[in-house]
């Protein structure tokens, strides 16, 4: 079953905007509603939209199996690395050693009511990025394997 031209054009126009919105949700996870899981699920929805509109062979340049598997591995390694970073600095496992340190995401939170600064919260944004990359790869590869198995059986 081949999708119509309207669906295919709409999917390829919408895909970059969905990816940008998902990355925004991941990046602002410690300030606004949402976080790693929600943003990763949004991006995986964009990949699923492409996979439904086209066949798996046509979009091998945009959504690739090896990239998605690498993303899963990278996300898990980054998450456990953020946990071990606390042990390296001589603090408990998963301790927030980067907060208020002046390094990456280390700015102190301003007092009083304010909209929030992106460069705060220490380890939390790194964990959000790790979970986001991992969920993106995991949920997209589920849909991708489902589709490619169906296409190989010639339905």
């Amino acid at each position: 079953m081949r999708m119509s031209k309207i669906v295919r054009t709409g999917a390829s126009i919408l895909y970059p905007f969905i990816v940008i919105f998902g990355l925004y949700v991941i990046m602002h996870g410690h300030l606004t509603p949402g976080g790693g899981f929600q943003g990763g699920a949004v991006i995986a929805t964009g990949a699923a939209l492409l996979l439904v509109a086209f066949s798996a062979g046509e979009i091998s340049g945009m959504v690739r199996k090896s990239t998605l598997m690498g993303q899963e591995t990278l996300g898990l390694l980054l998450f456990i690395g953020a946990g071990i970073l606390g042990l390296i600095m001589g603090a408990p496992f998963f301790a927030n050693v980067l907060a208020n340190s002046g390094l990456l995401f280390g700015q102190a939170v301003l007092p009083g009511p304010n909209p929030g600064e992106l460069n705060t919260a220490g380890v939390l944004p790194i964990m959000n990025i790790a979970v986001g990359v991992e969920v993106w790869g995991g949920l997209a590869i589920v849909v991708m394997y489902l589709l490619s198995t169906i296409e190989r059986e010639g339905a």
Partner: protein
Amino acid sequence: MIESIVHVLVLVGLVASALMVYFFKDLLAAALAAGFFSFLISLEFYILQAPDVAISQAAIGAGLTTAIFVIAIRATTRFEEDTP
């Protein structure tokens, strides 16, 4: 006032789309009605001040589940048989 009107509209739409899923013979239309049900559920979560859950529900329920249903319909038949 306007908030309770929207609330009642969402609840009526939930019941209507759930009935649509049951009565449609075209399975693609039924899958899209299930996706619309999930979208209304996420709107309800947002009205009840849980935006976190609303984003998850909109992405997983309305997006990924519908995509999986559409792929499954693509591999099987589109119309439901009359005899069980």
